[in-house]
């Protein structure tokens, strides 16, 4: 039986590169291909790197000859910054996904698509249930640009899988990632000199530890299921406590002052806080991971609280752990 042939988009990101490295060591995987304009930060041995922009229609000529059976769509940008304007971020996310699907129409060998989407689709709402399950996407209106983008992407992949019943399409909805290797909105926020919070609010925050995020992605590649699956480290942590664990001073701001102060800080060169993230800081969000555990068969090893402690400990130098690759 021939081995699997896997394409990873966004292989230049931390998670993409780590997944490629893991699949390289898997004897059951015949080919690992990586699509990105950036080169991976870690050395990859046998990954076939394709330097192309996912927004460019040229990928429709580059992907079919690879004859892959599995596609891991990992190029969804979660935060502005890093050289990407909000407009470019929208293009990469929405147009990129469309171009990828157009290319896959010409690749009949594909059997499995894993999308690393976002739990941002649920939004952050004061009236929300504490833990969203996968079918609760329509409870509230889509409020931010990113939320609408994620909903649009999910819609494309849903349509694709309806038209191709033989392809299993897994939509993984990730909570914000935390960990020594990732650069996410939440790690940037917790690295600010003072963390702005909404006065009088202490929302419940849920994150996913980068190692659990990687293991969940690998588990989904090994055992794909149809439809959406939430990915998070179980449990929640209060924002105030999270900031305290990260040893940062909180900066409580009254609601109306929050926008002006944070945008002044952005002009002064601090990390920008996106609209989603601001809502998250006000109302928080939790997701239910029953489906991840029962159907994908992956149980996260960190709780949200442990993930935050782990990250803060590594940053402060009090926790020493071998890198995830050696441990895996």
């Amino acid at each position, binding site marked *: 039986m021939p081995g699997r042939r896997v394409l990873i988009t966004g292989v230049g990101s931390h998670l993409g590169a780590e997944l490629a490295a893991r699949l390289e060591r898997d004897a059951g995987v015949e080919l690992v291909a990586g699509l990105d304009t950036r080169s991976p930060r870690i050395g990859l041995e046998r990954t076939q790197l394709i330097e192309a922009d996912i927004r460019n229609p040229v990928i429709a000529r580059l992907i079919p000859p690879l004859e892959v059976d599995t596609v891991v769509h990992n190029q969804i940008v979660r935060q502005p910054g890093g050289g990407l304007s909000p407009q470019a971020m929208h293009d990469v996310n929405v147009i990129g996904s469309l171009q990828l699907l157009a290319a896959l129409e010409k690749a009949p060998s594909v059997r499995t698509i894993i999308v690393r989407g976002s739990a941002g689709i649920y939004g952050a709402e*004061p*009236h*929300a*249930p*504490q*833990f969203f*399950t996968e079918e*609760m996407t329509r409870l509230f209106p889509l409020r931010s640009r990113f939320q609408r983008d994620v909903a649009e992407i999910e819609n494309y992949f849903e349509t694709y899988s309806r038209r191709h019943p033989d392809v299993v399409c897994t939509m993984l909805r990730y909570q914000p990632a935390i960990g020594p290797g990732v650069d996410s909105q939440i790690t940037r926020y917790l690295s600010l000199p003072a963390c702005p919070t*909404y*006065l*009088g*609010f*202490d929302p*419940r925050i849920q994150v996913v530890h980068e190692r659990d995020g990687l293991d969940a992605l690998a588990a989904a590649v090994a055992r794909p299921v149809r439809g959406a699956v939430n990915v998070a480290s*179980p*449990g*929640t942590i*209060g924002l105030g*406590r999270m900031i*305290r*664990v990260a040893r940062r001073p909180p900066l409580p701001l009254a*609601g109306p002052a929050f926008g002006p102060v944070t945008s002044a800080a952005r002009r002064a060169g601090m990390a920008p806080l996106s609209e989603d993230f601001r809502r998250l800081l006000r*109302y928080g969000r*939790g997701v*239910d991971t029953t489906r991840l555990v029962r159907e994908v068969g992956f149980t996260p090893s960190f709780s949200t609280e442990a993930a935050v402690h782990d990250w803060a400990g590594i940053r402060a130098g009090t926790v020493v752990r071998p890198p995830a690759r050696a441990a895996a």
Partner: protein
Amino acid sequence: MSAQQARTAPPRRPHDPPPRVGSAISFMRRLREGLDAGLELPEALGRSAAALPREGADVVRLAVKRLEGDYTDDEWGYDEGFVDIVEPLFGFLYDRWWRVQAEGVRRVPSHGRALLVANHAGILPWDATMMAMALLREHPLPRHPRFLVLDWAFELPWASTSIRRLGGVVASPYNALRLLEQDELVAVFPEGAKGTGKHFRDRYRLQRFGRGGFVELALRTGAPIVPVAVVGSEEIYPKLGEIPALARLIGAPFFPVTPTFPWLGPLGAVPLPSKWRIEFCDPIETAGYPPGAVDDRALVFELSERVRETVQQAVYANLVKRGSAFV
């Protein structure tokens, strides 16, 4: 002070002698000395707590632990440490302010899932906290109920945080379902906003019990329903009218006008000292129904009506037992 009140007053627990002024001064002095010596605030507080009488010292020590981030809360944000800190205040409300008398506390299952269904009044969930106090103080195996709170409270600063720490969650059937599946004790108020917003002249007349969603929850999880009648809660904020324009402005379901609110500003939020009785009635078992019972509308409405009737009757009976509302 009438003879009748002396007879009906709850048995007072022995309490500490009133804290002397001297101890407060000594506390402040130690605190200042500690800070002058270059200690961090939490440590200085902890050291000077020794000067306070026992109860005060305990509260300060708990508060210090929290300042250092050393506390645990569960995935819902329920925080036992916070409950311990506010216990003296709630104890005061329970014993002195409202002179709560609880009956039938033992009818609440001491473990496993159960649904408490009570009548509701007042914009702040004082009735839920007093039910919790009754269970914590008088149940042989004290347990803290979680309660469902009308969702707009979660848009308000501070209210959302403290309600969550005390065990409140957003009134969503998904939350109730998950809590019951985790074998928690859950309190619901099916009158909802109609209950909190009713006029003073309608006090103790139970409103419609929604669409019977709480019965569906009980049937789905097999949790017994314990009807609870709370008497006294409907006099603490006697609503005489409302200002719809202001309600629209702040997004609240209604903006109440009471004898003290909004005239006295924040002081208007101080509840009136009515006399309370809480009765926990016999549980109604739901585990015996077949699995499809949830979809049987007739059954759901029948059970819902039965619970409402039980609560209403118990409310009337306790009103008679209580006598006058305030003394």
